[in-house]
């Protein structure tokens, strides 16, 4: 049985991304195939910034999620509309908007809400962290 995580809370204004990290670590530890994908929506897309620099004595949350993605081959999706308006932009979007900079961190990918619907229909349940 596989599950989807939906994260909507800001990494700065809420604990959603932190709590979901604790959850996914425990879940993968218990059964490595239990999570099919993680979808970030609303302010949670801010987690996908390669530019954000947390103080050295604090957890690097973006990096912690990247490690999950790398080690367990779990896709981390950011809602493209929510991300672009919040300044989380990959190279392709950057060119499209004629910008010089891009900010999307490795292992995160921009996708439409249709991807969430797809996860919804191919996994047992969505667990939300807000």
């Amino acid at each position, binding site marked *: 049985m596989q*599950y989807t995580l939906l994260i909507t809370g800001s990494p700065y204004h809420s604990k959603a991304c932190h*709590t979901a990290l604790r959850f996914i670590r425990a879940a993968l530890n218990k059964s490595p195939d239990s999570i099919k994908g993680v979808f970030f929506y609303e302010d949670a897309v801010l987690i996908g910034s390669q530019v954000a620099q947390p103080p050295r004595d604090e957890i690097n949350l973006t990096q912690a999620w990247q490690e999950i993605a790398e080690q367990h081959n779990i896709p981390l999706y950011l809602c493209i509309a929510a991300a672009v308006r919040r300044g989380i932009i990959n190279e392709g979007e950057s060119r499209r908007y004629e910008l010089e900079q891009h900010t999307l961190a490795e292992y995160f990918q921009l996708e439409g809400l249709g991807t969430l619907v797809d996860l919804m229909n191919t996994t047992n349940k969505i667990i939300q962290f807000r």
Partner: protein
Amino acid sequence: MADNVFTIPTGFSVLIMRLHQINQLDYPASLETTWQNSLQAGDQVLLIEDGFLKSIQYAEKMQTLIKEKEITLYYLQSDAAAYGLSPTFGIALTDEEWVELTFAAEANISW
């Protein structure tokens, strides 16, 4: 099972037992009322993040809620350790048990 369950016009006639994830100490008043009123007998309530502090600050209210609504209340051991506070009721979960409970629920709602 659904014989004397009141149903709204969605066509659903079965109440789905669920795990309510509560992550705030204080919700805005009307939302606090809404989530508490939405509890059905047999539901589970899991306090996470700030919500853990409900078990300390609103200990009496929470215990009343458990009895009146016939629910089971859980919190995370790791949150209790982080805050250095020990509730006198409710069931403490390891992170692994948290995952089990969450996956096992018929439905989940994050308030």
